């Protein structure tokens, strides 16, 4: 009896210790970064054109990615969630690739694909379209990396709608589009929103693929993450920290929205 109690106590202690260590690490690291700068210095940095430009480019590209992700990603989610066909497993594996592949490799692959000698590069050159070292390139790189997060989340969400609801809709003379608009969209909207937030956060924090495709041209293709890296490497820690704090605020806000959405979903009680 005593041995069992002692074992239980040790187990609880082990859980408390490991949890405490991990959360302390996160808090200390964040605190260390926050304390390297003062509030005055932070606001001063925010007003600098370098920081402003990086934040603006990041916001422009990441929101463009959210827009494109929804319009290209949603039909794919719909297709994969509600249809069974040959080769579906291959498509799902392909979808997982950009998630598991290091972004740097994704960027390299895109660079090769879009370069003048690449598969798409030649065609794009013919039409005088340039994607490398441009904002469009940033969007493409971020889309490549972030879209699968949305597609998978939205697919799970649509797939979670009970099949008999779809069957009921069909027996009520609803066309596929009517079912989509009146049933699938409302019931999966939480998942869609969550997927969009995930894709946005992923696009905002994207570094490897963006750097490979768009380079690091200040005020042209320098996103927040690239600017943090470039300024940190050149010893300008104040600017790096200010940018990092901006990114942290964005991440924190998206986390809050994400949690609020799921809290609402639990309260509503129906699946999405």
């Amino acid at each position, binding site marked *: 009896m005593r041995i069992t109690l002692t074992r239980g106590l040790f187990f609880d202690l082990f859980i408390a210790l490991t949890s405490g260590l991990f959360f302390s690490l996160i808090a200390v690291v964040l605190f260390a970064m926050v304390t390297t700068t003062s509030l005055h210095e932070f606001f001063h940095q925010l007003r600098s054109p370098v920081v402003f430009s990086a934040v603006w480019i990041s916001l422009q590209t990441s929101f463009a990615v959210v827009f494109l992700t929804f319009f290209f990603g949603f039909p794919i989610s719909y297709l994969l969630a509600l249809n069974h066909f040959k080769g579906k497993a291959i498509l799902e594996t392909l979808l997982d690739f950009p998630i598991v592949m290091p972004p740097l490799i994704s960027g390299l692959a895109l660079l090769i694909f879009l370069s003048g000698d690449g598969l798409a590069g030649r065609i794009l050159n013919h039409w005088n379209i340039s994607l490398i070292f441009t904002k469009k390139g940033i969007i493409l790189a971020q889309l490549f990396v972030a879209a699968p997060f949305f597609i998978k989340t939205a697919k799970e969400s649509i797939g979670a709608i009970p099949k008999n609801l779809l069957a009921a809709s069909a*027996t009520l*003379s609803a066309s596929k589009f009517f079912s989509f608009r009146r049933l699938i969209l409302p019931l999966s909207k939480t998942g869609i929103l969550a997927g969009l937030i995930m894709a946005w956060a992923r696009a905002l924090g994207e570094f490897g693929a963006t750097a490979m495709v768009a380079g690091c041209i200040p005020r042209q293709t320098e996103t927040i993450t690239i600017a943090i890296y470039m300024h940190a490497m050149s010893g300008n820690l104040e600017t790096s920290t200010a940018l990092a704090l901006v990114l942290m605020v964005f991440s924190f806000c998206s986390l809050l929205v994400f949690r609020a959405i799921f809290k609402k979903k639990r309260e509503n009680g129906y699946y999405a």
Partner: protein
Amino acid sequence: MGITLENISKSFGKHGILKNLSLAVAAGEFHVILGPSGEGKSTLLAIVAGLLPPDEGKIFIAAREVNRVPAQKRGIGFVFQDYALFPHLTSFENIAYGLRTGSLKKKEIRTRVDRYLELVGLADHQNKYPDMLSGGQKQRIALARALATEPRVLLLDEPLSNLDACLQEQLRTDLRMIQQKTGVTTLYVTHNRADATALADRVSILHQGRIERTGSLKDIFREPETQFVAVFLGVTNILNARLSSLNENTAEVCVIHPGLKQNLKIKVKKHPVFHREKEFSLCIHPEKIRLRETPEGENRFLGRIVRIEIDGDTLEVMVDISGIKLKAVMPKTSALPLEKTVWICFEADAPHPVCEGCNRHPDYLRDCRCRIAGK
């Protein structure tokens, strides 16, 4: 607006669910398909609805072949076992859902929904979401939603199975009344005999992917035709017998039973099936058996009372005759104690063959013992 199914077959992988199933439901009829769980009842309904394609066979609704017509255009109403109400819509919107797919104006939709809410007695609950409704209310809304589109046929997939017994009884009454009021051709699948008793104009018994018997429940109960149907419907007192001698109007048969301790011969009214020489099954309805202190009637055997159960106003008494157990029904006033030895008496016209006209039936009725025996 009848439903006709011709030789419907459906398999999932190597597992055959429906095998050459044929069925005809007349316009305006309330037809119940009764069968044990896992026999393909829901699959059959999904095929009629167009939610599943059959592997083979033809489906006719209102004399028109609908095999290639999608569910959206078959003009059916479907009530699901678990209601399948749309959780994000109120009761009103759930019922209006099917009406919004057409070209009805808002005012017409409002009127129609109100009418059907009234019909199912839930006019006060129109603004409630499904998770605010009880099981019975959900099922009524599901029924109103299916009926509101004014379908040609109504399909119900065990709609009462998730409800408690009291609510089931109430909804059965309502369902029958609503069906009679609307006159919609209804196909209802269930494993519950009580549903069939309360609702059906005609019943079809589904077994091993085929319709084994169709008719009014009364007829099926009297002449189950196959041992499966008899056992499934709870017909008791089935005896396997062999013909011993045949007279002009009567026959004497020898009861065959593994636990039988003595030779048991009973006199039976002559039936055509007795011309076959080997085994057949006989059924004696419990109410035709009398338990007496002194022997009487054409058949009388001494037996022992082994169980007495109260069933409403009657007593169900189980008696043991040399290893065979028979059930008799007695008035509640009869005072027969357990373990008492009594005379079990019945007339020659009480036993009747389970499959009187089995020579009319196709080969697949394997449970029909006298058919196999007659080969």
